[in-house]
């Protein structure tokens, strides 16, 4: 009977020992997703226009706005560099153009509360150094955490074939998303990298 009880305790401990990956190895770069209209002929377009501002949306509605200045310039220039390299010609929005481009940035703050599992956050051993007789600290209080997730989206709108009904179809969309840094410049760099990667994986965006 005692053996069964011991076995049950071992069973409970072992089932709780479930190994999960060490996700600290994952890169902080944004995950870059692109989607295209399978019927779009990217070679048939020549001129494009793009706003110099970036739309900003967050999960705090009152904070929705437009980004201008250096941050917007960095993102817009990344798009222009890639489009120009693919043979497209940038024109002002006051002129006739085939493709309209729009950049949107989304920021979402996520927060929660975690109750640490006691000694050493559940891991055995102590991380070096003794305090007050080498006893590990115990956390009797909950800890609040927050992280911010962001997305940069670029739309490619077919203006050339809008027709009299002004049907503006999005023929290409990129989404670069992931956890954001507390540093603004880092987030700008992440977004620019994502834009560059989106074009790199979209080799069909090329004019004649």
């Amino acid at each position: 009977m005692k053996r069964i009880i011991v076995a049950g305790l071992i069973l409970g401990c072992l089932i709780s020992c479930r190994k999960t990956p060490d996700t600290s190895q994952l890169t902080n770069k944004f995950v870059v997703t692109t989607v295209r209209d399978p019927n779009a002929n990217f070679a048939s377009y020549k001129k494009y226009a793009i706003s110099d501002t970036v739309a900003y949306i967050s999960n705090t509605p009152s904070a929705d706005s437009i980004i201008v200045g250096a941050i917007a310039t960095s993102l817009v220039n990344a798009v222009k560099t890639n489009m120009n390299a693919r043979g497209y010609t940038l024109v002002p929005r006051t002129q006739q153009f085939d493709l309209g481009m729009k950049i949107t940035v989304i920021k979402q703050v996520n927060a929660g509360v975690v109750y640490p599992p006691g000694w050493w956050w559940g891991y055995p051993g102590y991380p070096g150094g003794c305090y007050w007789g080498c006893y590990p600290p115990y956390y009797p209080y909950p800890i609040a955490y927050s992280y911010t997730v962001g997305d940069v989206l670029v739309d490619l709108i077919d203006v050339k074939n809008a027709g009299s009904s002004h049907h503006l179809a999005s023929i290409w969309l990129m989404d670069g998303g992931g956890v954001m840094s507390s540093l603004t410049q880092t987030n700008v760099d992440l977004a620019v990298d994502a834009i560059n990667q989106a074009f790199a994986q979209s080799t069909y965006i090329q004019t004649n």
Partner: protein
Amino acid sequence: MKTKIIFIICSALISCTVTNAQWAHNLFGISWEIGIPVSNNDFLKKTSMEGGKIEYRHKIKENLTVGGFLNWRSYYEYFPTATYENPEKTQAVTTDMYRYIYNLPMGANVHYYFKAGDMFKPFAGLGIGAQYSEQSMYYNIFLAEDKNWGFLLRPELGTIIKFQEQWGALIGATYSWSTNKNDRLGIKSLGDVNFQIGLVFTD
């Protein structure tokens, strides 16, 4: 390592018997398992060192036991940044990721014991039951996870090495096959080969 285990098992099976010693009525085993995925290798193929098993066997005849088992096993493999496209090449995603499979096989088992010396008790067995499985992908801060159940079959070969009257060692190899299905990842079934080493307690 694999060759040595197979050699030990085969030696135990081939050795001539002298006596068929009295065997325990009940056996409780706990083992550490190494798992090698043999299906869906395009999802992940890295060997797992994080696995275990507990089992119970009850003697119904001198050379036959029935009982139950519960396993657990975690597979995970890191994939560096790469671009993945759908077959139509209309969608693409670039990221690095961890792919992860967690299996929880469980069921009833039956074992037949071959005649051998007092110390070795080689056996062949079959486990039948169910398997709970999770297939996951971790990328950036995101997690895509699917959970499913499947029917399970587990043939196995091994031997018990009796050190003392009420305890000994257990070594063996099993092949696990289950019908767990994941249409999103193109998984039609799960299969792995496992090598176990552990302890047994008897009464």
